[in-house]
C-alpha cells in the first residue's frame, strides 16, 4: 500500500511537469515561426486562434490523422523505435531541472552529469532513424549528425567543467545557489557564448542544421518519416531545444534566482524566473535561425575542434588558476 501511494505521488508530480512541457513545446514552435517571420518582415502563422496561437495544435491534429508510412525495405523495429527514443530522452531530462529550491522531481547529486548524459544520448534517435530508413539522404543526415553532436559535446563538457570549478558540486540546486551573488554569465561570459553556439549545434538548429539541410539532403534523417512519427521527432527536437535553454539558464543565468534580491522581484516565484530565462534564450535561438546562414560542414567541424575546444580548455586553466591564486576554490 505504501509503495502505491509513493508511486501515485510521483506519477502526479511527473504529469504535473510533463504536460506543461509538452504544451510549451507546442507554443514554442509557434513562437519560433513567429520570430522567424518578424525578422523577415512577414506575418508568420496568425490565422488559427488568437495571434495564431493554436497553429501548433492544428498541425498536431493533422499529423495524428495522417497515415503512417513505413518503407518496405526499412528496418521496421528500429525505424519505429527512433522517434520514440528521441522523444523519451528529451522528456526524461526534465526530471532533474529545479524550478525552485524544492520544486524538482529528482534532486540528485550528479544532476548536471545526468543532463549531459541524456543530451549526449539524444544522437541515437537520429542515427537509428537515419540508418533504419535504408535510404541515401537519411543515412547521410544521420552520419553528419553523429559526427557533429559528438564534436560539440566535447566543448559543452569542458564548459560545464568551468562552471563546476566555481561551484564545487554537481547538484543543480547548488549550482543555482552558488550564483546568488553573481550570475556566472558575468565572470564566464565567453563560456556562455560558446555554450550557446554549441547548444545550437547540439540540437541541430540553424546555422548548424546540416543533418536536415533541405538544400542538400531533402529533410535529412526525417525524410522517410510521416504522420505521428514525424511529429514525435519534431516534439523531441523542440523539447531538446527547451532543455538546452534550461541548462544554459541554470549554468549561467542563475536558474530560478531572481535577478535582484529586492522587494518586488523576490515575490515572483522561482519557476517563473526560470521560464523567463528559458524564453529569453529561446528567442535568441529563434533570432539566430533567422539571421545566420547555414555553415558548411568543414567549417562546422573546424569551429568545434579547432576553436571551441582549445579556447574552452584554456578557460578551464584560467578559471582554475584564478580560483587557486585568490584562494576561492569551493572546498568542503
Amino acid at each position, binding site marked *: 500500500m505504501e509503495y502505491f501511494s509513493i508511486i501515485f505521488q510521483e506519477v502526479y508530480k511527473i504529469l504535473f511537469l510533463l504536460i506543461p512541457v509538452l504544451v510549451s513545446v507546442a507554443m514554442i514552435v509557434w513562437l519560433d515561426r513567429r520570430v522567424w517571420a518578424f525578422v523577415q518582415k512577414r506575418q508568420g502563422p496568425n490565422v488559427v486562434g488568437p495571434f495564431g496561437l493554436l497553429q501548433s495544435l492544428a498541425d498536431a491534429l493533422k499529423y495524428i490523422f495522417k497515415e503512417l508510412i513505413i518503407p518496405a525495405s526499412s528496418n521496421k523495429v528500429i525505424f519505429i523505435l527512433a522517434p520514440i527514443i528521441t522523444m523519451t530522452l528529451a522528456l526524461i531530462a526534465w526530471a532533474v531541472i529545479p524550478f525552485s529550491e524544492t520544486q524538482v522531481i529528482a534532486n540528485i547529486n550528479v544532476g548536471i552529469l545526468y543532463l549531459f548524459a541524456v543530451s549526449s544520448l539524444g544522437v541515437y534517435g537520429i*542515427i537509428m532513424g537515419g540508418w533504419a530508413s535504408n535510404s541515401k539522404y537519411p543515412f547521410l543526415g544521420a552520419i553528419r549528425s553523429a559526427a557533429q553532436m559528438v564534436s560539440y559535446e566535447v566543448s559543452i563538457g569542458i564548459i560545464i567543467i568551468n562552471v563546476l570549478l566555481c561551484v564545487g558540486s554537481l547538484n543543480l540546486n547548488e549550482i543555482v545557489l552558488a550564483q546568488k551573488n553573481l550570475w556566472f554569465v558575468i565572470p564566464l561570459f565567453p563560456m556562455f557564448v560558446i555554450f550557446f553556439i554549441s547548444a545550437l549545434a547540439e540540437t541541430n538548429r540553424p546555422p548548424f542544421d546540416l543533418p536536415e539541410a533541405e538544400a542538400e539532403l531533402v529533410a535529412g534523417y526525417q525524410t522517410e518519416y510521416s504522420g505521428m512519427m514525424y511529429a514525435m521527432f519534431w516534439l523531441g527536437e523542440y523539447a531538446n531545444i527547451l532543455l538546452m535553454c534550461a541548462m544554459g539558464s541554470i549554468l549561467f543565468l542563475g536558474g530560478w534566482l531572481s535577478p535582484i534580491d529586492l522587494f518586488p522581484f523576490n515575490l515572483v516565484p522561482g519557476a517563473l524566473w526560470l521560464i523567463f530565462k528559458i524564453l529569453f534564450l529561446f528567442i535568441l535561438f529563434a533570432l539566430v535561425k533567422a539571421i545566420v546562414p547555414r555553415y558548411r560542414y568543414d567549417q562546422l567541424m573546424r569551429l568545434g575542434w579547432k576553436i571551441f575546444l582549445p579556447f574552452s580548455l584554456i578557460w578551464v586553466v584560467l578559471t582554475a588558476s584564478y580560483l587557486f591564486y585568490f584562494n576561492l576554490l569551493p572546498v568542503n
Partner: protein
Amino acid sequence: MAHAIFFYIFSTIAIISAIMVTVSKNTVHSVFFLILDFISISCLFIMIGAEFLGMIMLIVYVGAVAVLFLFVVMMLNVAQQTNQWFSSAYSSRHIPIGLIISIIIFFELIIVIGGWKYKPDLFNQKDLNFTDTVSNTHSLGQILYTDYIHIFQISGMILLVAMIGAIVLTFRQREGVKKQNYIKQISRERSEGVEVLNVESNKGVKIDD
C-alpha cells in the same frame, strides 16, 4: 525488496543483451545491444551508489564510444552487414582464438575476485570515504587526486599517446586538395582583386596573362 527487483531486472537485461551482442546476425543490431548493455550496467552502478561512475559510463561509453562504433559499422557495405562468424567456413578459425582469450580473461577475473575473497587486506577499503555526508563524487576525487595522482596522470598520458598515434597512423597529406585559408581570405584587399580598365571598342581586353 524493490531494490532487489530492480537489480534482477537490470542484470537480466545486461546479460541477455551481452549475449545478443555476439549472437545477432546484423552488426548494427549488435552495436545497439552493446549500448543497451552499457545502459543497464550504468543503472547497476547507480543502484550500488556509484552514481558518478554510472553517469560517466553513460557519457563516455554510450554517448561517445558507441556512437563511433555505430559510425564505423554503418559505413560498411549494407549488403554485407550480416555477422557470418558462426555460420561461414571461417568460424572454425575464429572460435578457438575467441575461446582462448575468453578463458584467459575468465581466469584473470577469478584471480582478482578470489584475491579479495581469501585475502581481504588486498582490497584496502579504508582509503575510500563512504559516508553519507560526503558524496560519491567527492570521495572519488579525494582519493584519485591525492593518493593515486601519478597513476591517474599516467593513464591520461597513455590515452593521449594512443590518440596521437591513431591520428599519425591515419593522417595522410593529399596533393591537389583545395583548402580554405581564412587569414588569406579575410586579409584580401580590393586592390588585389579588382582592377578597372579602359576598354577600347572592338579591341577587347586581355586578362589573366
